[in-house]
């Protein structure tokens, strides 16, 4: 007999996992046959995100497999705090508060250029032609990775994220595969870091190498994390956004008339169709944790179903309705607690600009297939292709 969670992992469930999430929530803390626990209700998720008895350090991780140390997403305080703060010094407040805000003109320029390039086509793949190139270009420029190397690191990145899909092999095999790929990616980034030491530029890598206290290994692990996360998640948020808007023509029409509505649209998307459906990496309990009448024993692996929590009817009124006007939308789209998404402000702005411009400039857009074909990944969910036909494109 398969559990609800196992059915969710089944790639066939990707187009609409939400009915399965509802089933999952019937047991807020559900023990799996392998002894791990899946948590799917809002209150319980928020509680775990702030619970210091929950560790992000995977117990089976074997650092010797890879040249790279673990990035901060897989560490606990104080190491997590120290490394995240070092990275933040160059990315945002308190030391670099205006950095992301200053990217708005450039991001707008990229969006405008991408849409300009689609004029006259009549039919496009929103994923490959729009949702993917925007965040990749932004993260490359911000981090300091040559855009032309994209075929190279795209492959590494795909391999790395496939290793967090529990459906793609045993834990040991996936850990080994991730370690090997990270080693390659690390070598690649190491070369770039050396270059930045010689010729500093206005990018994150240059900032990172300028930090005395940032060991080279940690610096490379952080950069690898940002590169992978920066272009495997926002692509799905944008694609999910275009899909959702095309399924809700009134919302698309309003965004067309009212571009200032974009922030609310994006927040609701993060609740309604989040790109990160489950927290990855997995967590584990450092002590027995009592939650919703269940004791998660010390050492147990914990899977947190963020997307199920954001559709919890006990927290959100009419949760399966796409309603950007909903008040008090404290969604779980970016997680919470100390591991709250590092790149959230970047993802938000990119998606706000992309969706507002899509709504403004595409005339008569319509879905070619609904549902579209999906990437198989259960945690990082989004369409593989999103074919859209349209009548015309408004000049910029």
């Amino acid at each position: 007999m398969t559990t609800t969670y196992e059915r969710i992992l089944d790639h066939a469930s990707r187009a609409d996992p939400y009915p399965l999430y509802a089933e999952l929530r019937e047991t807020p803390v559900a023990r799996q046959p392998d002894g791990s626990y899946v948590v799917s209700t809002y209150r319980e998720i928020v509680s775990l995100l702030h619970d210091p008895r929950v560790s992000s350090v995977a117990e089976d991780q074997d650092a010797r497999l890879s040249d790279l140390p673990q990035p901060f997403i897989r560490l606990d305080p104080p190491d997590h705090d120290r490394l995240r703060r070092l990275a933040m010094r160059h990315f945002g407040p308190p030391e670099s508060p205006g950095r992301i805000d200053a990217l708005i003109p450039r991001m707008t320029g990229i969006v405008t250029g991408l849409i300009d390039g689609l004029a006259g086509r009549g039919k496009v793949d929103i994923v490959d032609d729009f949702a993917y190139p925007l965040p990749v270009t932004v993260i490359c420029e911000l981090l300091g990775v040559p855009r032309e190397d994209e075929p190279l690191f795209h492959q590494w990145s795909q391999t790395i994220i496939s290793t967090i899909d529990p459906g793609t092999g045993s834990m040991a095999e996936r850990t080994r595969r991730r370690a090997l790929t990270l080693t390659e990616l690390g070598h690649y980034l190491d070369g770039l870091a050396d270059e930045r030491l010689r010729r500093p530029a206005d990018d994150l890598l240059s900032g990172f190498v300028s930090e005395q206290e940032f060991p080279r290994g940690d610096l490379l692990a952080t950069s690898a994390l940002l590169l992978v996360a920066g272009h495997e998640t926002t692509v799905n948020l944008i694609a999910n956004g275009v899909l959702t808007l095309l399924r809700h023509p009134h919302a698309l029409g309003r965004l067309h008339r009212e571009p200032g509505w974009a922030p609310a649209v994006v927040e609701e998307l993060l609740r309604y169709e989040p790109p990160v459906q489950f927290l990855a990496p997995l967590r584990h309990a450092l002590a027995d944790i009592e939650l919703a009448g269940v004791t998660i024993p010390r050492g147990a692996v914990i899977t947190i179903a963020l997307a199920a929590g954001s559709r919890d009817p006990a927290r959100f009124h009419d949760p399966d309705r796409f309603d950007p006007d909903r008040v008090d939308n404290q969604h779980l789209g970016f997680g919470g607690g100390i591991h709250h998404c590092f790149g959230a402000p970047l993802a938000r702005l990119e998606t706000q600009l992309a969706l507002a411009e899509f709504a403004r400039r595409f005339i008569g857009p319509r879905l070619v297939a609904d549902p579209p074909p999906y990437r198989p990944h259960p945690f990082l969910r989004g369409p593989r292709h999103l074919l859209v036909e349209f009548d015309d494109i408004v000049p910029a």
Partner: protein
Amino acid sequence: MRVVVDLTRCQGYGQCAFLAPDVFTMRGDEALVYEPHPDDSQRERVLRAAAACPVQAMVIDEVNGLGRHRRPADGHGRTPPLVENVVIVGASLAGLRAAATLRREGYEGSVTLIGDELGDPYDRPPLSKQVLTGLADAGETALPLRRALDADWIRGVRATGLDVAAREVLLDDGRKVGFDRLLIATGARARPWPDAAQAALDGVFVLRTREDAARLRARLADRPGRVLVIGAGFTGSEVASACRELGLPVTVVERDHAPLAGSLGGVIGAVAAELQREHGVDLRCGVTVTALEGDDRGRLVRARLSDGETVEAGVAVVALGAARNVEWLEGSGLAAGVWGVGCDAGCRAFDVNGLVTDDIFVAGDVARFPHPLYQYQFLALEHWGNAVAQAQVAAHNMISAQTGRWAHLSLPVFWSAQFGVNIKSVGVPTFADQVAIVQGSAADRRFVAAYGYRGRITAAVAFGQAMWLEFYQELIERAAPFPPDFAMVDRPPEIQVLPAEMPERVSPAQGATVVVTGHDPDERRAVLVRPRS
């Protein structure tokens, strides 16, 4: 536009500081300061920031730009039929939030707000932080409103009396204002320097009102030389922090043996002392100021200390705590005194006999209420978050039937930003006999300290670690054992449980002399006797 961030909710995610960097600024890792009255050119960015807040802690007026229309709630329970005239005395945070709650719950009768200050109600926390450093003007801290209140305002007028039997508030201009339900939200005021002549010296300040802040800011901007801060509670410490940020030399004099010791105990107070000294504060503990001295033109020049030393200073900020505004209730028959106004958990005021009234409510700094988690002790909290939460409960109860009433049971939460550190507390730290650092390290100024009373956890205080406090809040609410005995991230190798070093708890009703008269139950009465001074 007007902005206020509910820093009780804020966990320092910093999303606002990314998205509107000219309005929201992080000091250190998680202390947020912001411009409460940003220019309209920042509107788009502020709305983005508000939408992005992971804990939805931002209140902005006219939120329609984002389409976030607040819909009226259905209300809870029935409004008792006779309530059509609500009067609120005190038009600051608690009074304003109470009025907003009444309207949100669908109450359609009249609301009268009586305040002794002119101008719109304003937010106080910025006064000791961004106003002193010049990031914001004292005049620009008005509280935002999510919707029109439709209230009658009586401003610049002081309430001077209350006639409980006639249900009337008396005003200093001779007016009488009748009510069906009254909310007492008159708050507190700064305790002045006890010697009136010394207090009148040019250069001696208190900090409570917008005007106080404007005056002090103007003087600090003139580079007045050394600033003497008398009292190292939260206000005094924040003033010292702002002065250091301005590059001014600062001496802090504290009677206790550490700053913040009165609220957080001596162990954590010692960490606060190190923090102050690291930032260049000349901190003198276990000492009091015995006299302030001026020159022949009446300008402050120095202070004399109890240890015989003198401090040359051009400015003295008297930060000796607050006194509750209860004088206007004298003779009203309510249980009002230096301790505040006693009330039940539903915010209904007690009369002097300890009988609960049914039409007079209390909220905010002036209220003293029982909290079941703290052995039903009566607490008076001068916290922003308490004013908001209690005002909502009071307003709800004013217009609800008996069965639909709420109890004010929220755990106290407060915060303070000083010297680049966000200090945040949940629970009641003074209700403790032991304390232990359970996460992080005091040496790094990043830690969580848990407080225990007789083996159960009663409070937690975080320095730069606010995101963990939700967990400790749950522990406190469940009366979990102290010290925590489980493994957690960032746990020190050995948890050292120390005596909390709390100042001796003084009975809040000290000085209240009550005479009970009569013999039979129907004639027994308590009468408050004014202390002879």
